[in-house]
């Protein structure tokens, strides 16, 4: 669908195709079985890039929709979105005591570690889970408008970012109590980490949204994988609790690196160079893969939702 001004077509006023075909319904003709590979179009990278660009430019729409999601969820409740803060606070404060006792570790190092890690993990995991059904959730919009598809992921990011801001609040008293003071450098890395994590969530979120709308099994698969990853990633337990040999292996866990990207700056530290490099590679790979998949499937998504 190119918007070009040239005009070479049959005269508009002529009566064309006085179809004198048989009057009986010919179902076979309309219910054709065609091989899926037969209609594979050329890769349209331009349409994918246009989609992303138009999506960013429509920031008013996704900010409004993302904000609306939060407002509607807590409309007429007394605490409003601060229910998120309250429930996270209760979870962190109670879990901290129990697990510090179980692991027999010093509360002053474990408490901040758990609180920051848990909040970052909640952000990452809900983004992954909700990504897989983004297009299905927005099917009303997708079937009625030609808004860019990236808008729906940006709506999801907006919504979860607002939730994250509420989740961070209960972490702050712990950081203050244990006198963890942020340095200028760690604050800079915190912002950098957020931008990088959002970029990763954007890329992989769109990928998951496309896959999730085409294959409805993706969502339950991802849900169970995410649950296992929570236990395999140092969040409830500390990285340093592992043996030295095991510590080398966790480096390959993408969730460890993603959590560490934000947890370290929260704890007033600077993330390891390997973590930053890993996340940069993850973002680059995801962005590239997402562009290709979006270019290949963009014109089909409306049929899938």
């Amino acid at each position, binding site marked *: 669908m190119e918007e070009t*001004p040239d005009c070479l077509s*049959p005269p508009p006023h002529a009566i064309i195709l006085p179809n004198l075909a048989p009057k009986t319904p010919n179902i076979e003709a*309309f219910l*054709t*079985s065609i091989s899926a590979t037969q209609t594979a179009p050329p890769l349209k990278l331009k349409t994918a890039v246009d989609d992303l660009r138009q999506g960013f430019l429509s920031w008013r729409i996704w900010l409004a929709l993302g904000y609306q999601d939060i407002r509607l969820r807590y409309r007429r409740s007394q605490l409003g979105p601060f229910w998120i803060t309250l429930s996270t606070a209760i979870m962190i404060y109670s879990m901290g005591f129990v697990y510090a006792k179980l692991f027999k570790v010093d509360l002053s190092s474990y408490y901040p570690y758990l609180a920051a890690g848990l909040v970052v993990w909640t952000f990452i995991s809900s983004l992954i889970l909700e990504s897989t059904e983004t297009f299905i959730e927005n099917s009303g919009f997708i079937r009625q408008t030609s808004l860019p598809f990236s808008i729906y992921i940006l709506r999801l990011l907006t919504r979860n970012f607002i939730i994250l801001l509420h989740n961070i609040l209960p972490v702050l008293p712990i950081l203050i109590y244990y006198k963890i003071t942020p340095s200028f450098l760690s604050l800079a890395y915190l912002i950098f980490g957020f931008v990088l994590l959002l970029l990763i969530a954007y890329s992989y979120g769109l990928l998951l949204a496309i896959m999730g709308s085409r294959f409805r*099994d993706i969502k339950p698969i991802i849900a169970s994988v995410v649950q296992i990853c929570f236990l395999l990633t140092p969040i409830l337990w500390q990285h340093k609790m592992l043996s030295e040999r095991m510590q080398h292996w966790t480096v390959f866990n993408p969730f460890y690196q993603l959590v560490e990207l934000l947890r370290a700056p929260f704890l007033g530290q600077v993330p390891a160079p390997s973590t930053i490099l890993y996340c940069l590679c993850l973002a680059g790979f995801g962005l590239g893969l997402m562009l290709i998949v979006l270019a290949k499937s963009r014109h089909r998504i409306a049929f899938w939702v």
Partner: protein
Amino acid sequence: MSKIQLSKVTLDFPIYGANTRSLKKSLVSLMTGGAIRAEDNRITFIRALEEVSFELSSGDTLGLIGHNGAGKSTLLRVLSKIYTPAIGDIKIKGRISSLLDLGLGIDSESTGFENIYLSGLLRGLSRKDIDAKKDDIAEFSELGDYLAMPVRTYSSGMQLRLAFSIATCFSPEILLLDEVMGVGDASFVEKSKQRMSELVAQSDIVVFSSHSVELIRKFCTKALWLEKGHVKLLGPVDTVLAAYDKANGIKPAATRAKPASDHV
């Protein structure tokens, strides 16, 4: 100067039933290989449009007629760039606004004013544009103080009034309409028909689908008769409607005798 050109547009609707959609099938077919795999790769398609070609330029008003499932709504969605056809070529010049679903972006928990704002954004307007239109929408909908209340407190007629007022207050170059004429109670029906006529007059090109032959005759200069995705007939509105009536066993005199307003 707006323009729409369709040449030999064919749209196949993939049907994902229990047999093709699951990942398990894909994985199983990957492992079994051979003959079964070739068969599993086949997806059933419904041909919703076949070789549809026409050209519209400024001043044209095209009415789409045809039975249920003839492809009218699908064609409007192709023109709205929602469905991309696998075969054929589409060239569109001009800003499109489609009123396919009046309730789009209407959220029942938000107030009338909030809905006006959000719907405006969804139609690509800036905050300033919406503020300029807000009073007009409020006045036209006649909802008064209700606009500050959540839409869920509205009666269904009031919800339609709001949706209609929002959807029709913007003037597009190309207007695509799907059976949205005449909503609400008797007085509002008259008003909405008036608004529709204005909107049609303001737009460069209008493509309008309806089962009501009278509405097509009233608003359109051309008509396109779709049957099972094919163009059965395309031409001046009177010629096509006469053939359509004849095919449906309606005597031309009978339909003409009825006043247009009864049909809405």
